[in-house]
């Protein structure tokens, strides 16, 4: 046996013996990498020392008070919600239709529909953002509010479809046959059997769409003119031009929204649905 092959055998044996420990270490390190920045944000929102000084001398709720009395920040939240809510409703409706069509019907262009519904994830945001500003503002002359809502719909459709489609694909269609066999027509079958069974998936898709829309920055940044900024645009301006400690508080707001929405969504479906391609 050559020296090289006995070395490689030794390495193989070492890896075999310590595999579980190495895996645990990898998991711990990556989870720490992902969560430490978030912990830092939360911690800094209570820091008294002012912007970006670490470690803080003492802790305070002062910045939360500043945030709650800051009309510009509150307005930004309201602006965001007035965009995200209608965008989410439209997205959920359209994504449900896409999922239904792909699951139930065979028609020319079915593959194209599925591809179109996935592409916005893949095309770089800046490219789509530019294309939208050229078409919505430059060509169609859409009102700013409409442009932004439409942009949010395009941004959220792929993710909502990704969540809603599997609930359709895993839905047992024999249940619909059973319902019709027991005397319910198509409409009643849909309301009494199909909808209750796919509803959790649709709600989950909606929650994730709302979260994504609430966070949406790139499309909004391009499509939106000088009007009231959404919260992400507001915070972008803050970070770029005049950082105040309340940015940390706004970060916590984003965190709370995201965590709540995603946890509810996950409890409604199964987390592994998110891993379907």
């Amino acid at each position, binding site marked *: 046996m050559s020296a090289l092959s006995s070395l*490689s055998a030794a390495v*193989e044996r070492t*890896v075999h013996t310590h595999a579980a420990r190495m*895996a645990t270490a*990898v*998991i711990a390190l*990556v989870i720490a*990498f*992902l*969560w430490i*920045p*978030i912990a*830092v*944000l939360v911690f800094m929102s209570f820091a008294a020392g002012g912007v*970006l*000084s*670490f470690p803080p001398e003492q802790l305070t709720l002062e910045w939360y008070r500043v945030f709650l009395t800051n009309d510009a920040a509150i307005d930004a939240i309201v602006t965001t919600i007035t965009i995200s809510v209608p965008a989410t409703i439209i997205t959920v409706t359209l*994504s449900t239709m896409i999922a239904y*069509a792909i699951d139930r*019907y065979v*028609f020319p262009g*079915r*593959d194209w*529909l*599925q591809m*179109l519904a996935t592409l916005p994830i*893949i095309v*770089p*945001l*800046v490219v*789509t953002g*530019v*294309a*939208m500003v*050229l078409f*919505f503002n430059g060509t169609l002359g859409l009102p700013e509010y409409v442009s932004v809502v*439409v942009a949010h719909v*395009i941004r959220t*459709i792929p993710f909502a479809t990704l969540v809603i489609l599997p609930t359709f*694909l895993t839905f047992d269609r024999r249940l619909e046959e059973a319902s019709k066999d027991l005397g319910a027509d*198509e*409409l*009643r079958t849909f309301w009494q059997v199909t909808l209750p069974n796919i509803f959790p998936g649709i709600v989950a898709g909606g929650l*994730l769409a709302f*979260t994504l829309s609430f*966070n949406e920055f790139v499309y909004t940044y391009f499509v939106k003119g000088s009007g009231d900024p959404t919260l*992400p645009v507001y*915070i972008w301006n803050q*970070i*770029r031009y005049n950082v105040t400690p309340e940015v940390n508080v706004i*970060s916590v707001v984003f*965190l709370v929204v*995201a*965590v709540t*929405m*995603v946890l509810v969504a996950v409890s409604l479906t199964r987390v*592994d649905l998110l*891993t*379907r*391609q």
Partner: protein
Amino acid sequence: MAGRSDAGSAIGDRIDAITAYFRSRPRLRTLVVAGPPYAVLVLFFAIPLLVMLVVSFQTSEIGGPWTLSNYTNFLTSETYLTVVWQTLVISLQVTAIIAVVGYALAYSIVRFSRRTTLLLLLVILPFWTSYIIRMYAWINILQSDGVLDSTLNLFGLPAVGLLYSQPAVLIGFTYVWLPLAILPFYASLTNLDPDLIEASKDLGAGPIRTFTSVTLPMTKNGVITGLILTFIPTFGSFITPRLLGGTNNIMIGMVIENQFKSAFNWPFGAAIGMVISVVVVALLILATRFGGGLFGQRSQGGAEA
């Protein structure tokens, strides 16, 4: 919702009639369901991209005369080509980091952990918070005398002041794309029959040989998908280099942003958008040829490879 009342029976009959109408017309039914989302996606997603293509051939303003100058200006400028090169290098570095870290994590979770749901949730959750906020967190950490430097000081180590450097950009990108790229890695690994790994070991291959000759080839599609999901958004990004990279790490997305937010040369911005699109399309074609399925349900990980 028991039996219809007499008052409602007219409406009920009407609904029955409509249902019956659609029952006998499957094509119309398909059109009513698939048509609206199709129309929205074509009108507000596909057509804008085509408009961008058209505008990229126009001079300085929309509707102006036709020209190739946007492209020639871009492709003959050493500055811009350097930016493209730099963007390419950074994107490849990020993709390589994600491939190693992401795959190691997904593999560890699938093969060695029982709390997969919780761990997966912990990995995915940060993805759902605001991109800008996540970058802001790293500003807090990486800036001179920030969290990282202060921590190093505590241990008597010298400050590094990573902010506005290429490592800062790489860290930022890794941070934002890791949760997304892990999903296809994870999916293809869960679809891999664990018996195959045991069979390989039973036949005398050690863990590393098993990994390179069984696990990796069989999860190839998921890996390619994850890498595409990393490379493409990185290649088009402007937020991360703007916030973490400073002036020495210009990426092509920043050039576009500049055309729309300060230089106001939209056709030139559209042309750069087209350049990015060409790179993206080329990559997608390449990826599809190597088996990374990004569309449809055909690609359930690597189990069928």
